[in-house]
């Protein structure tokens, strides 16, 4: 029966989506990371912290004014040219989050992007799991239809 098969794949997908992945937490620890922003990149482009860490991002605008917006955390800080601005938060949400410049800084501004990885690449692994389930479902539909 078609609906039973769909129900099965939906249930497996939900397990993949909701299964708690192990994350080594670092409650109480703190870390300061310096990020240089220049047209049109953050340096370093990728930051890694542990879940639970208290993180301070020091944003240094090297050339023109830049901002730093942390997707998923909805936090923002702005720095004037040559100045340093700080943003402190607890990295309590695991996953990979895009860092975006939030101050128009030139032509490629909408694509000035960095990455903040908190713990493991949670959504990447979940996406891989979902794709494996979907591929399996696709193959099994062929067998069912054969």
């Amino acid at each position, binding site marked *: 029966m078609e609906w039973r098969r769909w129900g099965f794949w939906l249930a497996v997908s939900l397990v993949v989506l909701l299964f708690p992945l192990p994350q080594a937490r670092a409650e109480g620890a703190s870390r300061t990371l310096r990020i240089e922003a220049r047209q049109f990149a953050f340096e370093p482009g990728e930051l890694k912290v542990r879940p639970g860490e208290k993180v301070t991002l020091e944003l240094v605008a090297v050339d023109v004014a830049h901002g730093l917006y942390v997707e*998923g955390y909805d936090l923002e800080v702005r720095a004037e040219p040559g100045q340093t601005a700080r943003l402190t938060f607890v990295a309590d949400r695991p996953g990979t989050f895009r860092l975006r410049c939030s101050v128009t800084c030139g*032509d*490629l501004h909408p694509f000035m992007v960095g990455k903040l990885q908190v713990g493991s690449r949670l959504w990447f692994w979940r996406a891989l799991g979902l*794709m494996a389930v979907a591929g399996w479902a696709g193959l099994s*539909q062929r067998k069912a239809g054969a």
Partner: protein
Amino acid sequence: MRYDVLQLPGVKRLLTHRWPQFTLRLVLLAAFVLAILAGWLGTPVGNRNFAVVAVWIAWWALLILVAVPWLGRAWCSVCPIPLPGEWLQNGAVLGPTGRAGLGRNRRWPRRLRNIWLQNAAFTALALTSAVILTSPVVTATVLAALILLAVGTALVYERRAFCRYLCPVGGFIGLYAQAAPLELRVRDTAVCAAHTEKACYVGNQEGYGCPWGTFPAGMVRNNVCGLCFECLRTCAYDNIVLRIRPWGEDLTQPRGRKLDEAFKAFIMLGGALVYAAVFLGPWGALKDAAYRLGSSAWWGYAGLLLGVTWIGLPGLFALAVRAGRPRHWRRAFTALAYALVPLGLMAWVAFSLAFVAANLSYIWPVLSDPLGWGWNVFGTAQVPWTPYLGRWLPLLQALALAVGVGWSVRVAGRIAQELQLTRALYPVTAFVLLAGGGMAWLLLG
């Protein structure tokens, strides 16, 4: 499982009458002209200029997230680009008048009746997209060039040769329209066969002959139908249907598979991967390379894009198909490449979700101040930049990619079964998972 939406009250009337479609196209043409003027005369700051924001954020979002996956070639139905050329070609603005237009109505060269030129045109746009997407004046110039090219083509060649054979956007819309759950077809081909006038192809007083050069009775795929509804107007036998159908029906249709379209599938899938790396990745050097046209770094970017889209992905896929030991491997390669259409479409959806969600809020200031001259027409000029979707974005992207993988594998299974080439299914599935996994790493890793 199909349903003819023309049976719904008012729908056929709405689509047969010229005024609704014409009005919409006219409004879009006005927006198009505004975009060109804003690009040339307005602020050079891309995210403050109507040209960049309206075209590459608003239009792109509607096209790739709504129009193409749900309605196929619906955009082509209202696209304003061919409109001025059609007016000149037909010598009429609204419908057939019986008078001759200015068009020479030559037949499009036989050797070019494919989408290789569209493949090349899209690749050219992709190679320069870091500039086109961010520079208002370049965006405006490209839009103006497209209109001029469409006018020139309409004056020399018959029907909508520009749309069918040249438009870089129309090429991929046609590819992905085959996955859409909407199709225009004939109800009964026997009626068409018996109808000697073939008004749907040559036209009559009610409407023009198919602008896409398609005989509706022979149509088995959405790629050659621009949903202009001329056949709906010209058919005297009420033999045209506009049906809702299951997604992706055309992809398993054995008739009409072509190598040029197969390559379009690789170009689009590879394009999504490269765009995700360039525009959403943290690698500043890559963005710089894509932006500095003509520099040695740009040549490196060009090599990457061309290598991935025209060589790497097709080469890897050819190996996967070969592993199935097909008797006619070119036929198998072309047929199985159609299985990549769902993955490519969903990869673009996943990419566009991130791109659009982050940049959509630029629309509000630009609506009030399209040229960046300090106006505040609707009081929204000061609306701050606000990314949308936030925490939901990774989930939506993961789901989009998973749907793309599952759908592609399912289509591959059906095509492999049709070709009696089930041995190729597992290598092709591995290719799909590899491409999907690569996209997931770029977007979520």
